[in-house]
Structure formats: structure tokens, C-alpha cells
């Protein structure tokens, strides 16, 4: 009696495989049942057939760049505008918009969005992933809400970490350099019969920029520690699970920016650093029903904790209920009164205004004279806590050799908790349905289209379509035309902010209380609509086999309407959907393996931005690009040379050359890599903002990495 598949079943299987009845029951074809691994559902489009523009930053490039931050790596992506608000706050946007708020790009780590819904931002330096754990970064240049959900408005950055199965062994890395650079990394990976895991610990420190525009020390250093655990486990032939736990704690320095509003206050606090803690956990269950049908369910939970408290001093009148009422009636009037209170008090008359305003202002002036001018100091707590639960089901069905359907649904719950920003807790739920059909109409024509329907509790629903046509001249060369629409839901901050400061621990009681409400209070409109993007793209992607050269060219014309452009400020934040922007231009990207030892990579983007709000033109460099040359010199030596240039980011030119030289040494079974990186700025400008200045135009850091 034979155990295992019966000959009949085996022959059927082989018959199906070869589609040739004569071959059924073949004694010479290996009958050991191998599972179909690279199934139609698992295989991706070839680069020429991708329905859009894609830049892949592979492992080799990431390592060679010497970059310490994910945001720095994105300089290698054509059209990506990478700037800095401060040394620990990168600002990254594709094609541009506002320099201080980059909120129109989706960022995912292994499928989990790290875009903070509460405050409409991505904290690049707080992402709980070490550079050493990144396998590659796929940047989808263009809107793609159908595949990545709302907020994938301008681009999607998809960070893919190394699979635990590919991280076996032990790694230690230490980096030290100028500007207080002090990083470390340690990881251990192991595998067993049915699974693998990787545990990694890492830390990062640097001083940020050296000085502000006045030449004073700039308080923007950062320090952080991370821990991450990634496990994949095979349950059986069809099922597997992957789960991850990530945690990060650190401190981001913030300069003290509070300036007393009222006359005569000289005392002030010191700093307003942020203690940032991030926690994330995700679990993904993969099910392969058969070679034509697979699905996964991924659930994740994330928590962002930003603790920011500082001591501020101002006149006691800041807490006057009358002044608060006046602010609510007319913030402009209240601000005028507050800033000029001494003058108005001396003159004995409030500023001109309506009788009601003047009546209240008179009361305020009386309070000013009756002890209101006394300086009071207290604690301000601007902390936020955000929590997100996300559940996604995605189903991939290969209907035939030429037709594939990807569909799914997503549920997300977001909660933001902040006394200052939301006067307590605010939450939101989002439902999403999406579907995309890929149809290979012929050997040359590929049509891919889809739509996403989203319903958000706070902002209502929307439907966004997307269609792409690829013409494959041959499998390696393709032309594409893409039309897509995308939306961005206003985040809780933009729409529902309820911004006020409750000052506690007052140095002297105000109205008999040790805590009091500051008079400035800002509320979001609550009825903002989604921003809407219409994007048109023509492109070419080709791989020249003989030259080993990959070329991608793209022409684009993108329009954003209903744009929320108002900066998030607590004095007079009047958000609306009244703005619009247009971005047009071209991008190209070339990756050339010149020889076995040399790799050349060039990117260039020309972007023309037109925006109804001039702030939305600030982060667009009309000419930007990068050039890289990687070389293996043999005997363990390798080098990389990169040039990055932006004609103007927020008005400042940026040009830098990065050089990395590395030597690999074999120590028995272990490998040691010693590397030095030199970054040399070529221009004399501050980085993105006037306060971002270095003492020296160059920085050097060294790293040693041991692997065994």
C-alpha cells in the first residue's frame, strides 16, 4: 500500500500541470507534491506594467546612501521634496505644498499606516523602525487611494522591513560622528521548522542643527530607543501568520517659543521638549485558498504618546473670563486689545469696535489696572495621545490568466486625546471598500481600474476612481496613461480642533484658583470637506537588457481642489476648503548597472506649482534631483557618491554631496564592515527654514557593523 497521493490523483495533478493527456501518469516526472508558491495572486506586475510611477529604494542603495533617517533616503525619489522644520522634524512631501505641514502622503510600514490621523502628520524621526531593519522602500509616485486608502493623495511611501526569514544571525552596529551623532543597532534572528523571528534593538542620537538665525544654539536634538519584534509562522500549507511588536521612546527637543502677549512680562520658561513614545502591534493572517485565490486579514493597534509640557509666564489678565468672551466674539479685536493693553489702559479707552466689544474691553482694562498686570507663571500641557485600531481584509482572486481582482474592506477607529487640542477626547471611525481589476487584454494592452468608497464619521463619504492603461511594447518596455482621483479627509485637528490652554500649577492663584483657562481659544469649523485630487499621468518604463539600464519617465498634471491650506495656528485658525493647487511637470529616473562593479543612478524632476494660497508653493523646488555612483572596488572595498539638489525649498537652495567608503573584512565566520560617511553641503543656505543652520558645511560619521 502506498502512502501519500494516489497515482490517480498524481496523474490528474500532472495532467493539469502539463495540460497534455499523454503526459499523465508519467513515471519520470517528480511526483513529490510541491506547493505552487509563486501563484498568480502572489506575483506582481513587472515594472513596465505597473499602473503608475514607482521608485524602489533597494537594500543596496539604502546601505550605500549612508542615510540615518528614512526621510533622508527619500531624496533619492524624483519629485520628493525633503526638508526640515527642525533637526528632529523632517518635512516630506511629493511635489510640494506647505513647507511646515506635509500631510498629503500616505506612509506605511509593512502595510500599517503611520500617518497620524489626529494631527495630520507623519513623525518621520519617530517612526519605530530602524534603518537596518528595512529591506526596501517602494514609493508610489502619485495618488492611489484605491490601493492604499485615503490620504494616499500625492504619493505613498511603503516601507518594507526585512522578513524574519532573511534576518538570521546576529548583527551589531555602532555609528559615531560629528554633530553628536551616536547610533546603535543590535539584532538577533533565528528560525525553526515552521517559523522565523527577528528581535532588534536600536537607538539614535544627534544634536540637530547647530544654531538659529540669530546665531544662538538651536534646541532641536533628538534621542530615541526602539525595540522591535517580528515573527512569521507557518501554520500549514495554506496558512501563515506574521506578527510584529514595535515600541519607541525618545525625546525631541523643541525650542521655547512662547512670547508673552502682555506688556511688562519678562519672566519666561526654558524649553518645551517632547517626550515621544510610539507603540504598535500588528497581526496578519494569510490564507491561500488555492493558486488562484488568496486573502489576508490584518489587524493592528497603534498608540502615539507625545508628552509636551512647559512653563509659561504672562500677565494674570490672560485668564480673565471677560477677555475670553471677547476673543470668542472677535478674536482680532481681542488680540489688538491684548497686545496694546498698556496703551489702551493709559489712554483709558478701549480700541474702537462695536459697543458690545468696547463694553467688555472696558471691563478688561479695569481688571488690568486692578492686579491683572501681575506676572503669573504656570504649566502648560500640550500632550496628545492618539490611538488607532485598524482591521483590513484583502482578497486577491485570479479569475483567469489575464484577469485578476483585488478587493477588500477596511475598518479603522481613531481616537485622539488632548486637553489642549481637543478639550478631551475625540474619535472617528472609517469604513472603506475597495476593488481593483487588472485585465491583460492582449499581449500588449493592460487595463487596470478600480474604485474606493470611504465613509468617515466626521467627514462623510466619498468615491474615488482610478484607471490606468499600459501598452507593453514588449515585456520590458511599457507606456502608460493613468487617470486617478483621490481624496484626503481633513484630520481631526483641521476639522475639529478645540484648542485652548488650561494652565495649571499657577505661581499665584488667579481668581482663587491654582489653574485657569487661557483666553485664546480656537475651534475647527467641524464641517470641512475632503480635499479632492485629480491626477493625469503619461509615462514610460523600460529595461534595456544589454545595457542593464532601467529608465522611467513621467509627465504629470495634478490638481487639488477643496484644499485646506490654512496653517494650524492657535490664533485665528479659520480652516476652509477654499484653496486649490496645480502641479505639472516631468520626472525621470535612471538606474544603470554599468558593469558588475559600477551602478549609476540619476533622478530629476521639474515641477511647476501654482497654488491659490502662496504657502502651498513653498515646498516645491522647480528643479530637483539626485545622482549616485556606487562602486565595488574588490577586496571588500566599496564606495558610494551621491549628489542631491533642490533649486529652492521654502526659498532656500539645497545642494549636498554624500560620500561613503566602506571596507568589509571577514573574521572567520563573521563579517565586519567599517564605513565612513562624509556629507558636504555645497551651498551656504539654511535648510528649509531660516533657523536651521550648521556651524560647518560638512559632517563626518563612522560606523562599524559586525555580522555573524
Amino acid at each position: 500500500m502506498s502512502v501519500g497521493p494516489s497515482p490517480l490523483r498524481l496523474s490528474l495533478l500532472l495532467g493539469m500541470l502539463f495540460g497534455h493527456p499523454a503526459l499523465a501518469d508519467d513515471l519520470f516526472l517528480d511526483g513529490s507534491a510541491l506547493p505552487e508558491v509563486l501563484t498568480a495572486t502572489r506575483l506582481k506586475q513587472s515594472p513596465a506594467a505597473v499602473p503608475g510611477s514607482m521608485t524602489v529604494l533597494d537594500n543596496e542603495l539604502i546601505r550605500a546612501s549612508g542615510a540615518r533617517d528614512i526621510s533622508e533616503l527619500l531624496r533619492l525619489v524624483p519629485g520628493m521634496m525633503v526638508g526640515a522644520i527642525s533637526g528632529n522634524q523632517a518635512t516630506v512631501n511629493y511635489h510640494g505644498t506647505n513647507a511646515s505641514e506635509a500631510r498629503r502622503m500616505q506612509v506605511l510600514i509593512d502595510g500599517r499606516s503611520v500617518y497620524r490621523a489626529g494631527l495630520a502628520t507623519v513623525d518621520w524621526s519617530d517612526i519605530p523602525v530602524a534603518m537596518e531593519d528595512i529591506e526596501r522602500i517602494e514609493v508610489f509616485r502619485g495618488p492611489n487611494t484605491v490601493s492604499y486608502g485615503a490620504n494616499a493623495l500625492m504619493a505613498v511611501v511603503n516601507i518594507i522591513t526585512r522578513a524574519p526569514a532573511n534576518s538570521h544571525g546576529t548583527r551589531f552596529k555602532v555609528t559615531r560622528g560629528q554633530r553628536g551623532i551616536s547610533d546603535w543597532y543590535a539584532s538577533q534572528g533565528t528560525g525553526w521548522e515552521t517559523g522565523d523571528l527577528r528581535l532588534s534593538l536600536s537607538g539614535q542620537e544627534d544634536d540637530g542643527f547647530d544654531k538659529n538665525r540669530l546665531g544662538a544654539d538651536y534646541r532641536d536634538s533628538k534621542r530615541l530607543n526602539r525595540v522591535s519584534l517580528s515573527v512569521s509562522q507557518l501554520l500549514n500549507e495554506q496558512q501563515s501568520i506574521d506578527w510584529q511588536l514595535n515600541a519607541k521612546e525618545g525625546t525631541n527637543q523643541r525650542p521655547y517659543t512662547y512670547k508673552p502677549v502682555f506688556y511688562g512680562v519678562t519672566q519666561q520658561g526654558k524649553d518645551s521638549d517632547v517626550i515621544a513614545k510610539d507603540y504598535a502591534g500588528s497581526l496578519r493572517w494569510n490564507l491561500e485558498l488555492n493558486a488562484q485565490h488568496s486573502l489576508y486579514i490584518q489587524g493592528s493597534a497603534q498608540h502615539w504618546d507625545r508628552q509636551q509640557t512647559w512653563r509659561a509666564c504672562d500677565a494674570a489678565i490672560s485668564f480673565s473670563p471677560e477677555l475670553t468672551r471677547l476673543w470668542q466674539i472677535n478674536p482680532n479685536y481681542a488680540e489688538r486689545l491684548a497686545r496694546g493693553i498698556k496703551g489702551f489702559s493709559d489712554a483709558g479707552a478701549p480700541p474702537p469696535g462695536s459697543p458690545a466689544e468696547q463694553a467688555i474691553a472696558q471691563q478688561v482694562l479695569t481688571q488690568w489696572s486692578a492686579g491683572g498686570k501681575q506676572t503669573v507663571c504656570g504649566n502648560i500641557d500640550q500632550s496628545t495621545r492618539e490611538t488607532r485600531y485598524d482591521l483590513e481584509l484583502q482578497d486577491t482572486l485570479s479569475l483567469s490568466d489575464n484577469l485578476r481582482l483585488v478587493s477588500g474592506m477596511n475598518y479603522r477607529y481613531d481616537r485622539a486625546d488632548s486637553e489642549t487640542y481637543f478639550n478631551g477626547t475625540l474619535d472617528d471611525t472609517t469604513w472603506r471598500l475597495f476593488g481593483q481589476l487588472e485585465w491583460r487584454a492582449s499581449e500588449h494592452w493592460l487595463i487596470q481600474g478600480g474604485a474606493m468608497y470611504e465613509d468617515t464619521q466626521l467627514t462623510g463619504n466619498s468615491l474615488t476612481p482610478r484607471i490606468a492603461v499600459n501598452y507593453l511594447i514588449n515585456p520590458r518596455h511599457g507606456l502608460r496613461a493613468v487617470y486617478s482621483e483621490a481624496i484626503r479627509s481633513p484630520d481631526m485637528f483641521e476639522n475639529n480642533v478645540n484648542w485652548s490652554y488650561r494652565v495649571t500649577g499657577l505661581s499665584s492663584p488667579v481668581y482663587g484658583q491654582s489653574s485657569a483657562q487661557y483666553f485664546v481659544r480656537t475651534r475647527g469649523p467641524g464641517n470641512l470637506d475632503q480635499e479632492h485630487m485629480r491626477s493625469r499621468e503619461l509615462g514610460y518604463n523600460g529595461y534595456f537588457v544589454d545595457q542593464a539600464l532601467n529608465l522611467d519617465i513621467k509627465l504629470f498634471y495634478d490638481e487639488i481642489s477643496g484644499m485646506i491650506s490654512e496653517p494650524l495656528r492657535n490664533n485665528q485658525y479659520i480652516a476652509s476648503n477654499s484653496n486649490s493647487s496645480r502641479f505639472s511637470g516631468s520626472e525621470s529616473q535612471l538606474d544603470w548597472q554599468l558593469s558588475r562593479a559600477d551602478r549609476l543612478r540619476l533622478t530629476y524632476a521639474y515641477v511647476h506649482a501654482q497654488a491659490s494660497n502662496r504657502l502651498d508653493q513653498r515646498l516645491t523646488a522647480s528643479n530637483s534631483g539626485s545622482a549616485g555612483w556606487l562602486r565595488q572596488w574588490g577586496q571588500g572595498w566599496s564606495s558610494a557618491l551621491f549628489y542631491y539638489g533642490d533649486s529652492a525649498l521654502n526659498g532656500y537652495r539645497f545642494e549636498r554631496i554624500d560620500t561613503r567608503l566602506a571596507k568589509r573584512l571577514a573574521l572567520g565566520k563573521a563579517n565586519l564592515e567599517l564605513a565612513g560617511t562624509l556629507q558636504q553641503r555645497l551651498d551656504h543656505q539654511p535648510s528649509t527654514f531660516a533657523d536651521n543652520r550648521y556651524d560647518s558645511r560638512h559632517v563626518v560619521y563612522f560606523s562599524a557593523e559586525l555580522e555573524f
Partner: protein
Amino acid sequence: MARQRPSGALGMRRRLGWGLFLLSLLLCAPLRAADVLLTASEDNPAVRTFTAELAAQRPQDQVRFVALEQLPAPGQLPSATRLILLDPQSLDWRLQDPRGPATLVLRISRLQAQQRLQGTHPPGLSLLWSDPPPSRQLHLIRKVLPQARRVGVLYSEDSQFLLNELRGAAQSLGLEIVAEPWDSTHDSRPLQNLLRNSDVLLGLDDPKLYNPKTVKNLLLSSYAQQRALIGPNAGFVRAGSLASTYSDQQDWLKTLDSLLEQAPNRWPRALYPADFKVLSNPQVARSLGIEEIDPQAVARQLSEGEQRP
């Protein structure tokens, strides 16, 4: 019978004719009505089908299958028998006895032979390799991935002996073999290293490395690096290898047919079948951006190349 023979010129001529016929029968006897005996440890429909097809192809021979357990020691079989072994167990049985009829060993790979024979080559045995010849696989690489230069090869201590031959074959094609030992398949670092340092992966028919347990890691890792795997066999192509050459039952029937036409003393000591096919995975090719592979055309071109060395 002799007593009834006719006399006279006609009789003479008839006698001569018979004589010639007998002579020719005598000369051709080993080539014609041969006793072809197939054996394997297990009797199953696949074996029976094969036997039946071989019998149909060689009506002049007496082709039969006898299960291994029913056979005497090899030395006790008539020496004129042509023995065909269909599995390693039957080879073990055949090796017990240095005497015995001329034997064709089928369904044996280079690796299995190396393990069982340790480099020796017992007389009377003709080994017909089941794994695709390395040079043919390398030619296939040249054909479907003309830009590939560095061919990555994972090996175990079992398959290490193949490397020299592989290197020689690669050199003549302008290819370079990048070999990496893979001692423990739980540790994927050698695979990762190899993928980084090669343009394409060539799978050896080494069950320690290429088996149902490792197939997922092998294929997913190479796909993640956009590297194609060539080989090691047709089953792997179905799982996600880009392509492989292979010989199926029809090819083996042709090969056997031509061998059975020859006298056993002319049988080669070892042989790769000249008849083969190419199998490719069009979905994988498409995803890797590789021109569609026409298996028949490629097989024909490879075969033509082999015929004019």
C-alpha cells in the same frame, strides 16, 4: 523436418535461403527478440503503463515487468536478459551481485548514484541520469536570460561533486558559477548572499536543498530580489521556477528504444537522454518582465546546439 525437405535446384535454393535466414537470425538474435525485464520495488499503474508503452514500442521484444521481490538474485537471471531498473531499491538489489545481465538504470540522479556508488562504476551497468544535464540547463539560461552572467548555485556536501563539471560547462558559455554552500536550510543567509551576488539561480537536483520544505523560501526569496530560478526539475517550475529542461516518459521511451536497438556491450556507461523538453512558467516570466518563452522552440534550439558541438 529435415527428412521432408525437397531436393533439386529448387531445394538447394530453398536450403540456401533458410540458411541465410537462420544466419541472419543468429546474427540479429541479440537485437531482435530480446527479453526485456523491467523491475522496481513497487508495482503500480505508472510502472505498468510504462511497461505497456515500451512493449508497444518494441513488438519484437518480450517486454515484461516483474516486481523486485519476485526476482531471484541478479546472477541467476539469464545473461541475455536486458534488465531495466526503475528505482534505487532495484539498483541496490542489482549491486548485490557483480554478475548478472546487462542493466539499464533509470530514474537515478547523479546525486543518488554518487551516494550509492561512491564514484565507482560497476561493470554491466548503464546509468541513465534523471536530472537535467548541467550544461543543458546552462544553455537554457543563456537562451532565456541572455544578459545573465553570474549563475548562483547552492550546494550541499552531497552535490558539491557537481561543481567542477558545472564550472567547466559555464566557462565555455561565458558564464560564471557563484557557488554557495547551504549546510542548514533553516538558515537563509547563504541564500540571501547568493542572491545578492548572482544574476540567476540554478537549482541542482539535490533533495536536501530543493524539497517541499524549502521551496517556499527559495522561490519567495529569489522573487523578492527579482532573480529567476532555473530548474531543478519540472515540479519546481510549476511551483514558481522560471524554466527547466526535463525528460518525460515519451523522451525516455525514445531513448530506451535506441539503446535497445544496440548490443548491450555498446551501451554507454552513463547517459543523459538526448530527447528532452523545456517547461516554463509564463506567469513568472511575465512578472519578471521576461519575453515569453516558447518551450518547443527553445527545446529545439537547445537540441540543435547539442547535436553540433
